[in-house]
């Protein structure tokens, strides 16, 4: 399956008119929706954090680009996470309809790795600014 057809399958029209399988129990549909909303709030929290770092924190002495180095990746990750959360929701809904095993998700791993990386970069920037 090509990337374009995969993307086309994620559009709301294609998801809504997926007639394969049977309509799942409403509780599972709602649970899938809540999971999507939880990821959306995580994405919004990342955007808020990134924005606050860039706009509200005082500059780091000796690291003039430090705030942007920390804030911009968080905002970009927030944008990506929102789109990926929708794709995950569509995949899960597809599996629910067909009674298939829930697809494996790499999003929690990516989020954890990014937060760890950002924490390490923060520590380095703070150490450099403390030394100077």
């Amino acid at each position, binding site marked *: 399956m090509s990337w374009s057809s995969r993307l086309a399958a994620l559009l709301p029209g294609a998801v809504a008119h997926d007639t394969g399988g049977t*309509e799942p129990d409403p509780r599972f549909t709602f649970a899938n929706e809540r999971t999507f909303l939880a990821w959306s709030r995580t994405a919004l929290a990342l955007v808020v954090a990134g924005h606050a770092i860039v*706009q509200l924190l005082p500059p780091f002495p000796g690291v003039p680009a430090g705030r*942007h180095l920390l804030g911009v990746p968080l905002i970009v990750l927030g*944008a990506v996470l*929102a789109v990926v959360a929708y794709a995950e929701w569509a995949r899960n809904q597809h599996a629910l309809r*067909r*009674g298939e095993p829930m697809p494996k998700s790499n999003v929690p791993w990516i989020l954890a790795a990014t937060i760890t990386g950002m924490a390490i970069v923060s520590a380095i920037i703070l150490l450099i600014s403390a030394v100077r």
Partner: protein
Amino acid sequence: MTAPRDPSPGDGAQRGPGQDSAGEDPEHIPGLAQERTSLAWTRTAIAFAALGGVVLKENVVTGLIILALSPVIWQLGRVTRGSLPRADGRPPVMAVVGATRLFLIAVTIAGVALLCLIVAIFGKSVPGALQ
């Protein structure tokens, strides 16, 4: 983990007051799933409002746009409640509207993040506001 299928009424699921006749009403939603989902939509709307408040401090126009999205998000969460699988065989309205509004939320958050990115890079900062 395998996707769960329609559980029977006696599967131990939680039920709200007056929700003891699953299966008789095609619009019936067993348990408190609808309430929890409604609350999740409310929390998402509040998260939008919080982001709008933060951005408002630096950029009034962008902040107001994001703040104005908050009630829209809340309203989206109220759409199609009760439009569950229909007995006459037609496709459920929930599936059609559900996919569209979730897609809208995802696109909105990505757009808001882009706006915040522009404000973060090109906007005037207030350094030390969190000191």
